[in-house]
């Protein structure tokens, strides 16, 4: 019996549209160029990579499955749990690869301070990759990213002092878990300090819980065809 692997399947039936892949590549290239030309670009250079990952990881599972696009995979010898993990990995991979490559470019340029490969940037990438993917699993592509963006803007608008806190004006202690989730870009480019532990740690905990919930959802979900319901 020939078993197809879930990674190979998603390699053929890509989770990202060609336009999205082009967008990821373009943002990565511009960011790398910015860092090469301006060693002081710092945080403002890495934020676009985090933003594009927010949308890139928002691939969605349920709609594709209900159209029958995943039938061959789901009945082809691969367990649902492996399918779920492969879906997460392949959803997050393009953005993460660009992040690593941009970091490599920055590192090669020997800047006075790294901004791409910092603990804050890693946390921001983990947050946008995990939550955006997880929230979108039962919904159409990009819906999680769009919803998150709207939620973030709303929170930043209605919470007093939020814009100052996320812009670094009230560094560290000012960042509550809600603000970190609402605006994960606020920690991008920073080296996290002890004062960030509660805010960033809690936000990462929420992301981990969301990912676990989404993985479980995929392993248990019924996949009825849209036309058959």
């Amino acid at each position, binding site marked *: 019996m020939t078993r*197809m692997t879930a990674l190979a399947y998603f390699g*053929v039936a890509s989770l990202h549209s060609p336009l999205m892949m082009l967008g990821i590549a373009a943002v990565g290239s511009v960011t790398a160029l910015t860092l090469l030309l301006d060693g002081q670009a710092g945080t403002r250079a890495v934020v676009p990579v985090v933003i594009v990952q927010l949308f890139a990881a928002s691939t969605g599972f349920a709609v594709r499955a209900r*159209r*029958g696009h995943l*039938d*061959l995979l789901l009945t*082809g010898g691969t367990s649902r749990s492996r399918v779920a993990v492969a879906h997460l990995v392949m959803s997050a991979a393009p953005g993460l690869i660009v992040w690593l490559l941009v970091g490599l470019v920055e590192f090669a340029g020997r800047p006075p301070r790294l901004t791409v490969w910092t603990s804050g940037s890693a946390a921001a990438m983990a947050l946008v990759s995990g939550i955006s993917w997880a929230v979108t699993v039962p919904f159409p592509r990009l819906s999680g990213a769009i919803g998150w963006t709207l939620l973030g803007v709303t929170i930043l608008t209605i919470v007093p002092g939020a814009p100052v806190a996320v812009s670094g004006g009230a560094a560290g202690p000012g960042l509550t878990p809600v603000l970190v989730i609402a605006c994960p870009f606020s920690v991008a480019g920073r080296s996290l300090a002890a004062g960030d532990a509660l805010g960033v740690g809690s936000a990462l905990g929420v992301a981990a819980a969301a990912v676990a919930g989404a993985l479980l959802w995929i392993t248990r979900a019924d996949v009825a*065809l849209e036309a*058959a319901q």
Partner: protein
Amino acid sequence: MNNPAVVHVRDLAAGYGAREVFRDVSFELHAGRALGVLGPSGAGKTTLLRILVGLIRPTAGQVRIDGMSPRLAVTRVPVGYFAGEATLPGAVRASRWGSLGTGAVITAERRRIRTLSRGTRQLLGLRTVFGRQSLRVLVLDEPWEGLDPDAERWLSTMVETKRDRGAAVILSSHRLHDLAGVCDAYLFLVKGRGTLMHAQQISSVGPVTAAMLTRAFDTLRGGSACYRAAC
């Protein structure tokens, strides 16, 4: 039949939310046998087939494939399933999709699936599933849809080949002539109930014809229970 059934279905019921699609569906299918699932549009043929391959859970009853739940069975037993050309992702190139079955190239066609004709897409999906080796269970949902006469003959030959090599084959169609003479038993989904009839019950001499299936189908639609068969 001494060998145990490959597919064992007992008192199966399915529905979406409060809407019941069917109930009281029971049958057994052995290796090297074919079952035809017949019924009007909306009778639950697709739902039943998706339950058999573990994509949907039934609301009641039990399904076992080689003694396992369908969802476990599809990871342990070679199962082939195809629900029609509409389920193929249009953005994928045909040659790459075809290689998913075995890794071997089954078509050199480089165009994206959405640009192919309906019949070509249907054929691509079927060939991808048939490409898998040593199938234990083969489940095809309306496989004749969109095929030209040559492809129809090819499909019938492939189904017979897989069945003769020991696969338990389940086919669905709302067109009775598609399944006439192909199957060893027929499951009619009519009025939310499943009624199983073996080929010998429909035709004591010779193969089952479309006219015989039509008569049986009409009788069941009329509410007669005289065609009900023990499972």
